[in-house]
Each structure stands twice: as C-alpha cells, then as structure tokens.
C-alpha cells in the first residue's frame, strides 16, 4: 500500500478537549488522507461528535494542533476558520436545515453567500445538487418540516456539497433511516465521493456502512484513537473496547462472513 504517499487532508495532533473538569478528548492524534472515507466509531457520549465539532472549529480546544487543508483551526478564533469553512461541508445529525427556507433555497444558500452568479444559474446548480442526491425538483419546493427523515438527510447532504468542498463531515448520516434508505445513502456517499473526489470524515454507529463504504475506520475510546485501519484490521484488534464493539451479538449478526 502506498499509504505514506497520500497527502493528508486533516491532521490532528495531541488534541485535548474538555468541559469543566471532564476531559473528553485526551491527547488524540489522527490523520485523514485526501480522498478517503474515514469512519469514526466510539461509545455513545464518548466524544465522537465532540471531536468532529472541534475539528470544524465549533468547540474550543484546550491544547494541540488541528490542520485542515493547510489551515490551522481554532488557533485564532474567526477568520482562519471561516476561510477553511469554505473548504468543507458539514452534515449535522438532525440535518440542521434552515426551517424558514425551502429545500432548494437551503441548497442555494451557501452559493448565494459565497459565490457571485445569476439567480437562474444558482437555481440550476442547486437543483442539480438535489438531483445528484436523488431528489426531484418537486421536493426542492418543500419546506424542511414537510420532508421525511431520509429526505432531510439528503437535502442536508446536498447543502453540504453545494460549494463542492474538498472535505465533507458527516455526523451519523444513516441514523434514523431504515436499512434500505441507509444502504441507499451509503451508496450515494460512495458515488459522490468518487465523482467529486471528496474526503469524507464520517461519525457513525452503522456497522453496515462502516463495512461497505469506509476505506478506513478509527475507533475512539477513553478520549484516544485506540485503533485505526481498514475494517479487516480493526476486526483483528486486541483492544478490549474495539473487540466488544465489533464482536458483540449485534455485530456478529451483521457480518457472519467477515468473521
């Protein structure tokens, strides 16, 4: 494997994040390579979302270094992070669509704010994004409160991709979707990643999507990355938490062949 040759999209070094006296992320280091899909797993409440939100600059860190596409995140609040923000798109767990805008307007919003173009072109691009995530132009006229869970996630993904970012952060993209919709969403992420050449950082609990779409999987336990590598490698890991995670009853049921 030519692992070392791939340039790094996200570089996290010695990161510490905590709230009050509780340390959530404890001297964590992680590299995400350009063009890969990295899945992050960890216990509920174990700091996965905190790690993601720190990397995108929403939570202040205690110490350490975060470098996303060459920008230092969180060192000087505001300006550098804002610059970097144009290089990534974020899919929040609940979609976080603007409830006063239609689906189409939601997707057009980043375009309107960050690029100069005619309204006609903007609508075409936004509509193209909606169709790329598998929605129709009729769906574009709906308000977020009229969308189903799966459609909300798709619109949110289209909005995250509006500016063709280099990196996409996905916070539990398949949670709350039925297995068929979740499978479709996985395929969608894989396809888009291929066509648009994205780097995907995905927080997930969905063992099926870890297995099918992720190039590498990182396991977060006790505030550290305890194992990282392709799925097959993680399945061989000896770390007790990783073992419990991937060899529990539910996991065995899902992947009898891998074992």
């Amino acid at each position: 494997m030519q692992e070392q040759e791939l340039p790094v999209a996200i570089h996290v070094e010695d990161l510490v994040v905590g709230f009050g006296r509780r340390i959530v992320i404890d001297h964590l280091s992680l590299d995400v390579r350009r063009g890969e899909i990295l899945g992050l797993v960890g216990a509920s409440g174990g700091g996965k979302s905190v790690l993601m939100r720190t990397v995108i600059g929403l939570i202040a860190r205690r110490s350490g270094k975060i470098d996303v596409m060459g920008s230092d995140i969180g060192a000087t609040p505001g300006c550098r992070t804002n610059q970097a923000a144009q290089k990534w798109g974020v899919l929040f767990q609940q979609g976080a669509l603007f409830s006063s805008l239609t689906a189409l307007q939601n997707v057009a919003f980043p375009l309107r704010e960050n690029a100069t173009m005619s309204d006609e072109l903007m609508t075409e691009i936004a509509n193209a994004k909606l169709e790329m995530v598998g929605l129709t132009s009729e769906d574009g006229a709906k308000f977020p409160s009229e969308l189903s869970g799966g459609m909300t996630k798709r619109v949110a993904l289209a909005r995250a991709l509006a500016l063709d970012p280099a990196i996409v952060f996905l916070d539990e993209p398949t949670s709350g979707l039925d297995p068929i919709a979740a499978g479709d969403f996985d395929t969608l992420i894989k396809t888009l990643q291929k066509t648009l050449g994205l780097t995907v950082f995905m927080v997930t609990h969905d063992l099926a999507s870890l297995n099918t779409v992720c190039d590498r999987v990182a396991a977060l336990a006790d505030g550290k990355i305890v194992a990282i590598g392709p799925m097959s490698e993680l399945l061989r890991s000896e770390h007790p938490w990783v073992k419990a995670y991937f060899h529990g009853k539910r996991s065995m049921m899902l992947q009898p062949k891998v074992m």
Partner: protein
Amino acid sequence: MTNEPLLLTSANGSALELRPTGSWTVGNAAVLEQLSASIAPQLARAQSITVNMSGVRELDTLGAWLIERISRHFADGGQHARLVGAADDYIDLIEELRQVNRRHDPAATKRMSIADRLERLGRAALAAVLDLSAFLQMLGAVCLATFGVLRHPRSFRLTSLVYQIYRVGWQALPIVILITFLIGAIIAQQGFFHFRKFGAEAYVVDMVGILVLRELGVLIVAIMVAGRSGSAYTAELGSMKMREEIDALSTMGLDPVDILILPRVVALIVALPILAFIGAVAALYGGGFVAWFYGGMSPVTFIARLHEAISVTHFEVGMIKAPFMALVIGIVACSEGLRVKGSAESLGKQTTTSVVKSIFLVIVLDGLFAVFFASIGM
C-alpha cells in the same frame, strides 16, 4: 499555466471548437457565467460543436454544469455536440450532470390578477374567523378542564400552579413596581405642571387616584404581563409542540390542557390582580413622591386629599377587570402556542401574534368595561 478560466473558440467552417481552460470552479462563478454567455452568438451560427476539455485544470459541479448547459442548449436545437479530452476524474461528474435538470418545471411566474387578490382577501377573512374559533375552542377547553378539576379536585396540578404563580407573579414584581411607580410619578408631574396654570393643583390628587385605580394601574400591568408572561407561555408551548412533547402527553392518555394550560391560565388569573393591586399602590407612591418634592404638597395633605377624592368603588372597578384580562392573556398565549408549526420562523410569528393580540384584546376589554361600569353607575 494560469488558473484563470478561459473559453477559447476556433471556428472551422460551420464547426465550432470550444476549448475551456483553467479552473472551472465555483470560485470563478461570475467569470464563468459571463464566458458561457459570451459565446452565444457563435453557437447560434455553428452547425456542430466540439468541446475540448484537455485544458481544464480544475472542474467542479458548477463548471461541469456550465459546459453541459452549453452543449445541451446546442443539442436542443437538433445539432450535434461532442465532448472530447476530458480527464478520467471528470468523466463521472460530467456524466452525472447529463442527467440533471432534465425536467422543466413550469416556472412559478409571479402573477397577481384580481382573482388572486380576491383569494387573498378571502383567505385573510377566513383566517380571522379561524382565529376567533381557536380562541373560543381554547376557552371552551379550559372551562371543561376547570369543571373536570372541580369534580376531581385531586387531579389539579398544584405544584405546577404554584411554580407558574412564582414565575408570572413573584418574579414580575420588581419590574411591575418600577414601571407603575414611574407612571404614577409622570402623571402627577404633568398634572402639577398644567393644573398650576389655573390654580387647580389640589385636583392632581383626584386625577392620579382615579386614573391609577380605575384604569391605568390594571391596564399597564396587564400589558406588561402580556409582553412578559404571555410571550413566554406561547414560546414554551410552541417549542413543546415542535418537539412533539405535547403529542407525547396525549399518547399517555393525558390532556395537555389539564397539565400545561390550566395551571398557566389559573396562575395568571391569580397573579394579575395581585400585581395590579401592587402596581396601583406603587403608582400612588410615585404620585405622592412627585407631589411632595415637585408640587410641594406634604404626604399628609396628599393622603387626606386622596381620602376625599377616591372611594372603594374606583378600586373595585380596577380590580374586577384584572382577572378577566388575565384570562384573555392566558387563553390567547396558550392557543397561539399550540398553533406553532415545525419551523423556528413560525414560533417567532406566533409569539408576536400572541403579544399583539392579547394587548389589543386587553384594551378592547378595558373599553367594554368602561361602557359597562358607566351604565351601571359605578
């Protein structure tokens, strides 16, 4: 090689070759859109076009769509468009964009005919009727819940009532006292200033006493409560509705009116008269202060004049109105809260409506009471 996007053209007879170069990405959107529009006349003349993609350094959805749009526009005219030299990385993206925006939805043109205006008027009238019916429904539901509580007093949520009284009554005290004190002081000051011209300073006390006890005390307090507590009720119930908490209550076989609304409305009915009383007293204090320091009327004289000027009737008139105003504020706030829909915007809209409507109704009610008390000679 520069990253500045360019669109080179070379015509060979009726065949046109387009050679986009540089970065065809969203960062250059304005330039790109101009470029693709500028070749329109050449496109119109050409019989066939070839798009040579070999010079493109970077391509994203926007760039790919613009190129697709050019060739599609051309192909729509029954002509032939060809794409050559695209890097492998971009082929997928271009193929993907071939599929999109195929269906032309009937453009939502903004026309405003007379029929539309009439429709709007009709809808507004209907909305007013629905508003009234929502108010009456909530009033009915609260009455029903009250009867239910009277039959089974144990089902009443006493803890909730006490907590709500603490919030809308006790916590509102400082601001109510401050504002009514100032209002009383201002009325007295204006009275002294103007009455002095014709030597009627003694009647300032009558004016302050009657105005504050009959009208202003309760009205000001009701308006403040509508703005302070009514809006809080609407926002609370509205966000509970948004988060399906109210549906959750219903599925447990509990009536949201019993649990959430009745204690809130009753708390207002209990708290508002108390606040109005305290407010009226504070306003009299304010008037007395100004009379002492500005009008040169000693507190003893002020109190003696007050004794002569006002009777218990004035006080009763003010106090009788208070619970009714509280009921109106509570019902409006709760019914607007339950009408919140999914979006954050609707929460804001309903909260505004709640405050505006309850202040309006409080003033209308005050007017009706004025007519009523005048006709029964109070």
